[in-house]
């Protein structure tokens, strides 16, 4: 069984973002780039499955759509433990474009399980995984909080309103994963970092696809009113304020 983990390259999640060129572009100055947190958890779970010989998972590949500057992020995934990587050499202009590129990769390389994070922390579209599955005409399961493989059969837990469902799905499929899929992201050890230097990153040139959306302007959130402080000895005043000013209680 072969697993593909799709990874996105995003600003570190503590970044205070700024924009340039008339607020049309992200100011990349000083940004630390990381593997999208959910993708990192996907990779961790994929590697856990591979570590367990009973699952029959033989390899874990990562795929990414991005230009050459994103290679350190791919190397990080290799250092964490992915066997090999694929980079589609293109600027991912929107989710549809990125998913179309990844679909070509999956068609050529053939994977049994494709894992994608539920969203990327930069554009928050929650779209690439499901779009990829639709391009391939294969099942997708969203809000996945656990994947097991028993006797060649994937057993998936997905979150639903007020609970969870356990389901099976035939391979190949796309699992769109969220919290719970792995407890903590696996961290690269020194040996992994050394080994990552020689692991292969296969380069794909993009196929011609038009993006369906265009980001035309970014705005910062509207500033909130300054905090009104209430005397800790008299919390009742807070309740009075909430009653009078917000009318919510």
């Amino acid at each position: 069984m072969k697993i593909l983990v799709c990874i996105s390259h995003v600003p570190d999640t503590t970044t205070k973002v700024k924009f340039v060129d008339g607020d049309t572009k992200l100011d990349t100055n000083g940004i630390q780039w990381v593997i999208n947190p959910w993708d990192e958890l996907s990779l961790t779970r994929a590697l856990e499955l591979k570590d367990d010989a009973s699952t029959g998972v033989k390899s874990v590949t990562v795929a990414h759509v991005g230009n050459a500057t994103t290679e350190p992020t791919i190397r990080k995934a290799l250092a964490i433990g992915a066997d090999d990587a694929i980079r589609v050499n293109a600027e991912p202009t929107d989710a549809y474009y990125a998913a179309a590129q990844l679909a070509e990769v999956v068609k050529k390389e053939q994977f049994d399980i494709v894992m994608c994070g539920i969203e990327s922390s930069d554009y928050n579209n929650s779209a690439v995984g499901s779009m990829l599955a639709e391009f391939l005409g294969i099942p997708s399961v969203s809000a996945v909080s656990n994947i097991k493989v028993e006797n060649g059969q994937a057993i998936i837990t997905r979150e639903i309103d007020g609970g969870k469902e356990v389901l099976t799905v035939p391979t190949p499929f796309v699992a769109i994963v969220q919290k719970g899929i792995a407890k903590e992201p696996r961290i690269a050890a020194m040996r992994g970092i050394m080994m990552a230097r020689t692991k292969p990153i296969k380069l794909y040139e993009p196929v011609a696809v038009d993006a369906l959306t265009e980001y035309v302007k970014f705005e910062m959130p509207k500033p909130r009113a300054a905090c009104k402080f209430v005397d800790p000895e008299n919390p009742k005043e807070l309740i009075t304020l909430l009653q009078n000013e917000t009318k919510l209680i």
Partner: protein
Amino acid sequence: MSVLVYTENWDGKFKKLSFELVSYAGKLAEMMGTTTTAVTIGEVSNDELKQLGKYGADKVICLKSDNLKNLDSQLYTSAIAQVAQSEGSKVIVIANNNSGKAIAPRLSVRLKAALGSGVSQLPLSLSPFTVYKRAFSGGAFAQVVLKTDIKIIALTQNSFDIVENSKDVKIERVDIQVDAPKTVVKDVQKQTGKLLLTDAEIVVSGGRGMKSPDNWGPIVELAELLGGATACSRPVSDEGWRPHDEHTGQTGKIIAPNLYIAVGISGATQHIAGVSGSKYIVAINNDKSAPIFEVAQYGIVGDAQKVLPKLVEAVKEIKGK
């Protein structure tokens, strides 16, 4: 033409989210000079379907098929795409929740329709069709042009106010043809009757500053008194003090209640990412320099153990309990 709005139903019932979606679709249809069709899947009574007419649906289509008993993203996509095609829909509105996220992107590829997700208000313009959406996990917002003939909008829960707009609604029931599902549900564990965190208008949330899971009593009590739900920060769920489904923040649940009361939560960027859509934030923390106070409109600098019981008393007083 028409604006199509998909709303799920929960065991045959709609909820506030459904009415938000229909209200949004109704207002959008007004902007576009067209009508609103709502679609739902499963067994829903006529009285319940008629409710959608109160919020602006001109027509409600209730789809039925034995193959659609559980959410199978491929089949739900097929079913909704069939309706969109027969209705000639130009815009499809869907919730940006778990099931919406499972369906909307597939629908986007199926219909070659641009998707704007995490949208929190009506389009800024119809030509070009520009939506306003959350980006950088709440660190910014983006104006995005949807460039295709058909557009899909995934609306953030609790971002659009319900508006009554009574219509003489027409109800259609359709037995829809779809394939057999590939996903097979083996087991369901579900708590019914409990207010969902994502549906709650008031949320009381505890962080590491609560010191111990034994101190959660007043948080739960305050949430109950206010008719709200409880939440927690990531360290709290990681420690096992509270269940994982209460974890609110970037990698946990993203919520947008009207009132979010953060107790003993310092307000790391990742936590704020999950709650920045809240209309009002109240912070109770013993550290005056905690970043949570930068996003809060009301704050108490003090020991949560001492402040909380007094708050509970004050709320009991006004609620007459």
